[in-house]
């Protein structure tokens, strides 16, 4: 894939996440895609992630993936961004996140996500929030 194609794939993925377009996520994630999170320290599958997508929005009115800084390398990209959310009670929170992704044939094959779970309570607007 060219640098342009990789950048476009990255933006398509995050726009789809933002716009709740699971049909596009289904297309851009390879069937064998693995998603790893530094907070949980375990890998999950494409199916795990897409089946829980709507649940992940529980309590949230809106999410935007802002201030994206994308750099590409020969088989992937790294994106640094600020995830902003508006909860159903009006609370606004944000998280700084970095993702390193692998790509192949127009699809994402691996996602490694890095964030700070100590910010989750402030993100959700509740001290009870846990990773």
């Amino acid at each position, binding site marked *: 894939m060219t640098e342009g194609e990789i950048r476009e794939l990255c933006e398509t993925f995050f726009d789809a996440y933002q716009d709740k377009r699971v049909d596009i996520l289904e297309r851009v994630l390879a069937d064998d895609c693995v998603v790893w999170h*530094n*907070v949980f*320290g375990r890998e999950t599958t494409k199916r795990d992630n897409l089946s829980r997508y709507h649940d992940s929005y529980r309590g949230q009115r809106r999410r935007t993936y802002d201030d994206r*800084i994308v*750099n*590409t*390398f*020969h088989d*992937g990209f*790294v994106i*640094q961004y600020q995830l902003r959310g508006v909860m159903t009670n009006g609370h606004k929170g944000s998280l*700084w*996140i*970095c993702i*390193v992704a692998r790509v192949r044939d127009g699809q994402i094959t691996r996602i*490694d996500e*890095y*964030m*700070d*779970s*100590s910010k989750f309570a402030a993100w959700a607007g509740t001290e009870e929030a846990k*990773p």
Partner: protein
Amino acid sequence: MGRVDTEHRALCHALFDAIEREDPEGMARCYAPGMTLWFNVTGENVSGEDTIAAQAAGRRIQRRRTYDDRIVNTFDDGFVVQYTLTVVLHDGSRRSLSACAVAEVHDGLIVRLSEYLDSSRFGRLRTTEPATS
């Protein structure tokens, strides 16, 4: 991209090797004048000088730290490194966390380093300073 790729990889390893062996001069050789380090835990920028000073302070509570399992990918003006930081304290206890750093490189030196980690994994370790300090 071949030569740049090799140079950026060498710079990445030079920095992390210098931190591992407690070599402030080695760290300084990797940083451009005016270099800044940004840390997702605090959201603040710190200078290269402060980063190097914090590295020395950290040794008071740490016997050893290693940056293992480094996965490095490069791009035209920088690199991203994913790694496991393992810290051994003076009492022998050991903690590890997974982190990621994105570097912007100009003229062979790091001008900006952005580090992302989960501070809850630090436990008794410092929670407000970057893993690369």
